[in-house]
């Protein structure tokens, strides 16, 4: 949770001599897409060739590819691709049962109650590993477009992320070689991007409808301070559902049946584009490729709206829940910020406008708005000026007292950093030790709160019960790291412990993963680039093989020979470990095939005139 302080007179003179010249960026590590952005004087822009990087990671063999390339693999080799791993951050096998909806994960049998392992081509990977691959890719993309090394970032997380999920996100960054300046809440970042921190006081709603998840947050801005006062959401509601709805309609209109997941994925790719075009057009008319045939299909915006009506209404219901949770009236909300690609849909905007009785804020690209806010915050953190964001402690912290009750020491919503102490005493004559059980939560009974740590203060001089004075101090730093100390005041005996949020990956394991990646750093980059090139080449070869099967008769013997020769050369290069060689051979093959591709398109055209359908012409040309 975050509070924000707006500093009106940010010292102008300091601006030019920023103390550290490190470049700091903002990262939106999303469930469906991820974005990296940089801010200069409060103006943000997204970085990289794939500005909207699909949060997809494909492991072919040992190394990972991310984004568009992983999406290509999704159609062909979906068993190597991971998506929506954000939902698994900081979770163990016992938590996953609570996640509703279909889960696209292949869970490795060695998973336990603290940690979920996923199966990547036989190799065990965690959500932290996969997220770190996405972060590495973002970092690389950004470094390429800035021609500068990036070391530091502000990363956004959902407001409802718990300590474990936040710790997991930080570890993923560490593995990617990124120092996290601060994790900030996504709705707060969106509000920052819209400059609501410069606005007058009021209550704001952030409506975030992404690919697979929906979140609503209510923020309160008061005397220059931002506070998240309520959040609600649905982890299985989003644009993907809308794509599915169009697929179902198409299948029923065309009187067809989907037989496997590959067919479904192929259709989903097409309906996603249809959905997007219905944002600006009133009707979509065209061909749908299915089972190597092309079908006429049309859908009007009204029909689309009927399909998604129920889902959109569900999101509105969740908004109402959040508003009532906050104890506010919906009329008290001063502005509504739209986040997530699905908020481009006019029907979504209209419904949100109707519910809140006002036009929502949409002038910043809803896919980038969160990353922009993070970038602005990163800029002000590196300069040590500008808008100061203050965290609050989201859950009360305390210790167990007699009878299994909880004595709260730092209440929830307390501004951090903070240190608070309370005095306790012994309850037995001659007692020389005191057990301290550190707890988190709002409940009065210790067994209903989350246990964070145990330690014992020993060596208390024997005294009558009630005489010893044991001062217990809870200290939270700006990142929410808790240190608990206990001190017997008459003797000066002291004991302290650092309480770290854990989620199954021990510090030692993270350390080892880091060391491993340093040790292999050179080898690493080399192997990664090589495997990326190999994967790309493999996709190309697979597509070509299909094309030759269906249209090989179009080729002269000499042409076919040239292609076969180029294929053999590429395959040989792929067996070797020279990445440039793979790339060059792939380019050569592509060039040789260009005539073939043109012939196939021509055939497809004439076949279409004769009423025949040819499959995947365009795709194979692109390959």
């Amino acid at each position, binding site marked *: 949770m975050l509070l924000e*302080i707006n500093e009106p007179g940010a010292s102008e003179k300091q601006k030019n001599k920023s103390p550290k010249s490190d470049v700091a960026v903002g990262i939106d590590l999303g469930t469906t897409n991820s974005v990296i952005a940089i801010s200069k004087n409060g103006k943000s822009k997204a970085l990289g060739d794939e500005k909207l990087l699909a949060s997809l990671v494909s492991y072919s063999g040992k190394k990972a590819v991310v984004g568009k390339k992983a999406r290509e693999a999704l159609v062909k080799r979906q068993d190597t691709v991971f998506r929506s791993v954000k939902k698994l951050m900081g979770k163990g096998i016992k938590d996953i049962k609570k996640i509703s909806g279909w889960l696209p994960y292949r869970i490795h049998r060695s998973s336990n109650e603290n940690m979920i392992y996923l199966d990547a081509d036989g190799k065990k990977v965690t959500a932290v590993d996969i997220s770190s691959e996405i972060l590495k890719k973002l970092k690389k993309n950004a470094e390429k477009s800035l021609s500068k090394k990036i070391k530091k970032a502000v990363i956004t997380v959902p407001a409802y992320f718990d300590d474990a999920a936040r710790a997991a996100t930080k570890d993923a960054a560490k593995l990617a070689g990124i120092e996290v300046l601060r994790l900030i809440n996504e709705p707060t970042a969106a509000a920052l991007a819209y400059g609501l921190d410069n606005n007058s006081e009021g209550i704001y709603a952030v409506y975030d409808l992404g690919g697979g998840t929906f979140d609503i947050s209510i923020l309160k801005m008061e005397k220059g301070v931002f506070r998240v006062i309520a959040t609600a959401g649905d982890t299985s509601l989003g644009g993907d559902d809308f794509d599915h709805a169009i697929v179902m309609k198409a299948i029923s209109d065309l009187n067809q049946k989907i037989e496997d997941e590959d067919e479904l994925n192929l259709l989903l790719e097409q309906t996603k584009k249809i959905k997007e075009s219905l944002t600006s057009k009133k009707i979509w008319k065209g061909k749908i490729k299915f089972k190597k045939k092309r079908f006429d299909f049309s859908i009007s915006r009204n029909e689309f709206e009927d399909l998604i009506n129920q889902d959109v209404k569900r999101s509105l219901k969740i908004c109402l829940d959040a508003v*009532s949770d906050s104890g506010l009236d919906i009329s008290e909300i001063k502005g509504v910020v739209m986040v997530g690609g699905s908020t481009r849909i006019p029907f979504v905007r209209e419904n949100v406008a109707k519910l809140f009785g006002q036009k929502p804020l949409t002038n910043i690209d809803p896919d980038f708005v969160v990353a922009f806010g993070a970038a602005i915050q990163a800029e002000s*953190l590196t300069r040590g000026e500008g808008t100061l964001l203050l965290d609050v402690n989201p859950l009360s912290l305390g210790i167990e007292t007699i009878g299994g009750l909880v004595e709260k020491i730092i209440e929830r919503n307390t*501004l951090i950093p903070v240190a608070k102490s309370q005095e306790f005493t012994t309850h037995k004559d001659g007692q020389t030790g005191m057990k301290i059980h550190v707890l988190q939560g709002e409940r009065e009974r210790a067994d209903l709160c989350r246990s964070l740590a145990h330690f014992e203060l020993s060596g208390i001089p024997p005294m009558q019960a009630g005489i010893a004075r044991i001062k217990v101090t809870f200290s939270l*730093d700006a990142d929410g790291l808790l240190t608990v100390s206990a001190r017997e005041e008459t003797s000066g005996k002291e004991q302290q412990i650092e309480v770290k949020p854990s989620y199954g990956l021990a510090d030692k394991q993270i350390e080892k993963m880091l060391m491993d990646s340093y040790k292999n750093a050179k080898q690493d980059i080399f192997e990664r680039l090589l495997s990326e090139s190999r994967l790309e080449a493999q996709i190309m070869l697979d597509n070509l093989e299909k094309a030759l099967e269906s249209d090989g008769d179009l080729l002269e013997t000499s042409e076919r020979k040239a292609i076969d020769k180029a294929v053999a050369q590429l395959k040989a290069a792929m067996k070797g470990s020279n990445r440039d060689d793979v790339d060059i051979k792939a380019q050569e093959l592509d060039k040789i095939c260009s005539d073939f591709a043109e012939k196939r398109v021509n055939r497809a055209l004439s076949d279409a005139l004769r009423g025949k359908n040819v499959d995947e012409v365009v795709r194979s040309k692109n390959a």
Partner: protein
Amino acid sequence: MKKDVAAAANPSTYKMDYFKILGVEKKFDLDEAILEKNYLLLQNRFHPDRQVSASKNERIILLQKAKDINAGYETLKSPLERAEYLMQLNGIKISDRELSKNVDSKVLYESMEMRENLEITKDIEEVKKIESEVKNKIEKIYLELVNVFRNDDFKEAMRLLIRGKYLDKFLEECRLHKLKIQKENNAA
């Protein structure tokens, strides 16, 4: 930056009470606008996010200062906590357990009656009405506290503080009760 470190590390300022840290007059009816203004000013200077060029040691000291500023601000911002803190500075410590022991029967009877009324209420507007009545009562306690603190009447201050704490807890119960009604209405 150096000057800030010196101020924070100076032993004579280290044991400052919250009123001194936040630069407000040491009294119950302090100027809340000045408290707010000073808090933002101080946090802007001492918050760890502002220590871009500080050394590691400087950071540790400044962090302690930032913690004191936050703790002090939150203590002084809430009239009930402020009252409790003032009593503490005058050598009167009260723990939650003592509070429940020292409560007089009038206060207990009052809160029992209010709770019974709340339980049977099924109408949000009705709860809001109860809430505003309780808020008025708390406001009155604040006004009375101003006077008793002026006269250093800590015994009476204690009595008022305990009643205030009971009423404050009851407000939280009202909030939860409102949520319950809203959930029931939404489900229906």
